[in-house]
């Protein structure tokens, strides 16, 4: 119970920090809307001569990409950068002396940041959907929300594992950029997976990649109805949690800190 309370306090505090800068929030929302507006014209140009690409019409494809890009903006957290910074500065030593699991601590902070970002970005997303004449039509909101939660767990665990690389490497830009590029591209955030060759699509759905963005977006847009994809996604989320825990234990054996 006290652990839950600690997580809540951490999430709340980090959410407040994320939402503090009003001018920054406004500029980010304006930038987001501008990006979405340009995305609309890009996809419109793409569909001008061919109204059905990869079996999707313009509205379905745009709803998919816009929702996936919004999810990427909201549920991707800088947990990797934060952890790597704490490792380099030695601050991680004092974190490890606290009666709380390192992954849980970072998870709670990431959740707070995600909630704060959702608060100010979802209205902008709704505004864009209204302007573009699009709408989300999930056949089941509970399945869609559960899929979103699993997606957050997958993305956070991956960021946490990548952040742990800070114990082994000094410059994490390369590995974080690789992770973001692979997750966005193979996860269906840059382009719907329907544009991929059929074999690649099957493979991506069995592997964790499709479950980063494509599965939650498919539930939100009503392309998925049954719980099968959610079950696969939940299995991957559990596997990622286990792997993050084991990786954390493994690299902590190498930890040597001076100062902090």
């Amino acid at each position: 119970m006290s652990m839950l309370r600690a997580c809540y306090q951490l999430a709340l505090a980090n959410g407040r920090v994320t939402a503090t800068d009003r001018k920054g929030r406004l500029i980010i929302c304006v930038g987001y809307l501008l990006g979405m507006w340009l995305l609309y014209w890009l996809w419109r140009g793409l569909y001008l001569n061919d109204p059905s690409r990869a079996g999707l019409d313009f509205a379905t494809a745009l709803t998919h990409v816009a929702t996936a890009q919004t999810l990427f903006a909201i549920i991707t957290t800088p947990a990797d950068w934060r952890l790597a910074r704490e490792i380099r500065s030695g601050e991680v030593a004092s974190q490890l002396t606290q009666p709380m699991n390192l992954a849980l601590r970072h998870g709670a902070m990431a959740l707070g940041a995600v909630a704060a970002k959702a608060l100010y970005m979802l209205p902008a997303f709704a505004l864009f959907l209204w302007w573009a004449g699009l709408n989300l039509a999930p056949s089941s909101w509970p399945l869609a929300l559960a899929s979103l939660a699993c997606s957050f767990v997958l993305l956070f665990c991956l960021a946490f594992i990548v952040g742990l690389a800070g114990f082994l490497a000094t410059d994490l830009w390369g590995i974080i950029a690789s992770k973001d590029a692979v997750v966005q591209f193979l996860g269906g955030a840059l382009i719907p997976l329907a544009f991929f060759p059929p074999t690649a699509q099957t493979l991506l759905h069995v592997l964790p990649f499709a479950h980063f963005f494509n599965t939650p977006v498919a539930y939100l847009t009503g392309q998925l109805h049954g719980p099968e994809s959610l079950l696969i996604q939940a299995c991957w989320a559990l596997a990622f949690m286990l792997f993050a825990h084991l990786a954390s234990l493994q690299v902590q054996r190498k930890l040597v800190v001076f100062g902090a």
Partner: protein
Amino acid sequence: MTAFLTAWWRMAVADCKVKLENRADFGLIIAGMFFTSAASGATLYLMLGQGGSIAGYSRYELLFMQGFMFLAYVFESSCCNAMYMLETWLKNGNFIRYYLRPVHPLQMLVLERFHPQGVVVAATGLSFCGFALANLPGVFDVAFVLQMALLLPLAAIVLNAINQMAIASSFFLGEYFPVFHTVGKLTDMSRYPFELFPRIARGAFMLLPLAGIVWWPCQVLLKGQPLLPVLGVMTLIAGGSVLLLMWLWRAGMRRYAGAGG
């Protein structure tokens, strides 16, 4: 100028030695560049599908535009990496030294850090452009090389000035991320044909110096527009961007108050 170049060369050599000493880190940087560029190229390839064209631009012309963007980014990637530290220096007072050194603050920024990742960015850009040109018969010749040699440095100046202006927003807002993130969305779109966008957006892109990054140069390199008028426009855009950047830094430095360092 000789003193500046000597200092820059010494710093670049020392930085290269340090950065290349840790080969695993450099390998990861190469992997980062590979995956980001491969993802953006593959997205474009899949997006275009069987049709293979958008707004009158073929798949290979679009790949060339992406490659040109990478090449324009080389200068910033290798020589201006320190700009991301501006916000931290403003906050911890380290920026005070910019008032004390006998060089222009923007030159000073170039003297702070050199990153060999620029070589990787250049290789990526050349690969994109080379692959595209191999599939665009009749485009590549001696005149093309000369035109590229003239237009690319101007495009690099425009891109760098835009990004440095976005970073300089930390003088006024305290943090650079919101403006840099927003500007990043715009510069990211500038590698696509402007013909896609409605008239108002096209006009805005022309007025803002965004058109000088990829669109204007590619009108000469790919669409056969005469070089001289475009070179004139590009020179104006690049000059204007630099003047605007210098004005913004001057205003920022007048506004800044810090202690310590």
